[in-house]
């Protein structure tokens, strides 16, 4: 800030006016570029959020001849005394806590592997990326068959003498089964992001490190990891938000069962809002979900803030 002032102060007035004009032009360009995105964001994001805020305090229904009525905190009282809600919240958190480190770690491992300077890496990059371009609905259907008691996975397990469980039918294994398939589907996407980060690290740094006698592990810790800082923040935040909004797999494979062991907040909101037609109640669930994601994102933002910049 101070350097800017020092530079502009001694300048003659003519130049100032000129720069003002340029400023105004660049302002209108900025507005023009902002408008399309802003309109879309406001229409499809900001307004629905405000509507959700409002609906959460009413008894609005999807289909009803009676206008919605303000009911205060009724929906929230009902929600916080509902066992399915607490189970859904717990499942959502467990899913996120497992997915975030495992998926980003695996993706990083794969990225380093396919970044190696050997023949055929393009083939592996494509293979790992294939599940990402496949729709989650299709992936869920396929794994639904594989997870059946006499499906592919249990047949393979039986070959090595293990009797596999009824993966999706047993409350103890259902969430785990969904976690595995979710990682398999999405890991390729984050691998590509890591890969782009890896390729921005200049080769000279590695050369310098190896001249200094650093081994592979030391190179990773002191060259690769610091070079991936921005990438890792991006990956952390995107995986967390994606994990919180778990829905498709649950909707197709288990419908929240058995015994609510795979129910999630988003699934519960969709189920109560559309199948059970309780728009107001579903809005309350969405609001809780919104608050949860916002809190976690803010904490992550705080923890990963660029400490160097504040100095």
């Amino acid at each position, binding site marked *: 800030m101070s350097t800017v002032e020092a530079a502009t102060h001694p300048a003659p007035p003519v130049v100032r006016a000129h720069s003002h004009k340029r400023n105004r032009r660049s*302002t209108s360009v*900025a*507005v023009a570029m*902002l408008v399309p995105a*802003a*309109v879309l964001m*406001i*229409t499809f994001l*900001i*307004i629905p959020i*405000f*509507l959700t805020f409002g609906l959460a305090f009413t*008894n*609005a*229904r*999807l*289909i*009803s*001849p*009676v*206008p*919605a009525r303000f009911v205060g905190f009724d929906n929230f009282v009902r929600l916080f005394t509902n066992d399915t809600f607490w189970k859904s919240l717990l499942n959502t958190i467990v899913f996120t806590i497992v997915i975030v480190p495992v998926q980003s770690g695996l993706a990083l491992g794969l990225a380093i592997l396919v970044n190696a300077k050997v023949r055929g890496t393009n083939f592996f990059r494509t293979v790992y990326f294939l599940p990402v371009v496949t729709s989650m609905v299709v992936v869920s259907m396929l794994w639904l068959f594989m997870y*059946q008691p006499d499906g592919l996975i249990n047949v393979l397990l039986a070959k090595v003498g293990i009797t596999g469980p*009824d993966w*999706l*039918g047993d*409350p103890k294994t259902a969430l785990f089964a969904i976690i595995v398939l979710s990682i398999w589907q999405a890991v390729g996407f984050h691998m590509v992001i890591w890969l782009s980060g890896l390729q921005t690290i200049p080769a000279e740094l590695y050369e310098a490190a190896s001249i200094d006698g650093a081994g592979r592990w030391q190179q990773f810790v002191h060259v690769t990891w610091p070079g991936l800082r921005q990438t890792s923040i991006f990956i952390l935040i995107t995986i967390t938000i994606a994990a919180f909004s778990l829905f498709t797999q649950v909707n197709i494979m288990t*419908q*929240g*069962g*058995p*015994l*609510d062991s795979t129910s999630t907040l988003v699934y519960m909101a969709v*189920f109560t809002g*559309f*199948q*059970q*037609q*309780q728009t107001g109640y579903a809005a309350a669930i969405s609001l809780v979900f919104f608050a949860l994601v916002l809190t976690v994102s803010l904490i992550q933002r705080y923890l990963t803030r660029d400490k160097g910049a504040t100095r």
Partner: protein
Amino acid sequence: MLKRTARLVATTFVAASLMLSVAACSKGGATSTNAATAGGTQTLTLWTHNAGNKGELGAIQQVVDDYNASQTTYKVDLQAFPQDSYNQSVVAAAASKKLPCILDIDQPNVANWAWAGYLAPITGMDDILAKYLPSTVAKWNGKTYAYGYYDVALTWVTRTSILKKYGIRVPTVDQPWTGEEFMAALKKVKDSGDFKYPADMATGWTGEWWPYGYSPQLQAFGGDLINRTDYKSADGVLNGEAAIKWANWFAGMAKDGYMPKKSSADPAADFMNGKSAFLWNGSWTAVPTREKFGDDVLFAPPVDFGNGGKIGGGSWTWGYSTGCSSPEGALDYLKFASADKYVAKVSADTNNIPTTDAAAAMVPGFEPGGENDVFRQISKKYTVMRPETPGYPFIATTFGKAAQDILNGADPKTTLDQAVKDIDDNQKANDYFQQ
């Protein structure tokens, strides 16, 4: 300056959109362009859920074409939707006041949509509809809102050769198996080890199948989804002694290995491949199973678990909307389309049970003594309608979830008590759907 303009734009935008959406929220009937006049002919829009279902769509198209050729005052314009998104389309159309004139409705939704003001009551057709199977005429609050061409019937599909081999009595429509008889039969089959599972109740299906397929069994034990005297509470019927007995039986079927806890996606294929001996399924399995087993296949009536055998009733039905600008035209079409020959045509093309006796005589197999006559008899004798209350969608999903939990080992009493509480809360929150 920029900030202030942006804020102004944003505020105006939010305010405008809020007003728009609030306007869209005030639901109910609709004034719209669903009946346009051109050269003295009024066009009536007709919506159906049949897109992709060649047999039924073709039959409905035939009815519409015949109607358009029969007179010049009205022209019906058919628009088909895929079944999976049909209900959402209608709800969205109602919210934006763009309901079609004539539409088909899944029978359990009729009360809900009538209460919401989507549907107008059908008048002047009482004589015609008196000849229809009661389960194909959708009523609510004493008024008729829709009628259907056909119904389907649930049966226990098995094979005469299996019954003979294990010494099981062949049941008739008048004398179904009793609960003890049925369980003894299952045990015999199970002990033989010839089948992977003695029975299969298609537990792998989801959604409306659960209340449709399993609430009749609950009723056969003496329970029900809701107390039908006033449709206010489920207390005592869904969590009473009979309901607990049903729940224990239902969970026991899977726990004791009489049926898979989660059936495969195609239980009829499993039955035809000899994996199960008794299949709880609809009359729609008649065509493929006959192809496979010929005369050997047997369609047994629902088991009497003490309160008489029961099956669900009601399928797709036709009615007209409150938004129709030409109710006379809609009623004229509905009257024209209710003729026996169309009932026969639609049922024949969909392999379903024709609703009138006269039509049944015209559809091969459904004439008295025909091979499909058994479905009509079962339907006439055992049908219990799914509760005709606007609260049904909530009751259905709540029951479905409770039944699923019970099958997975949840305590029957606690689960059903909770379901009753949820249903009662919902009925009460809607002032018991009084108008």
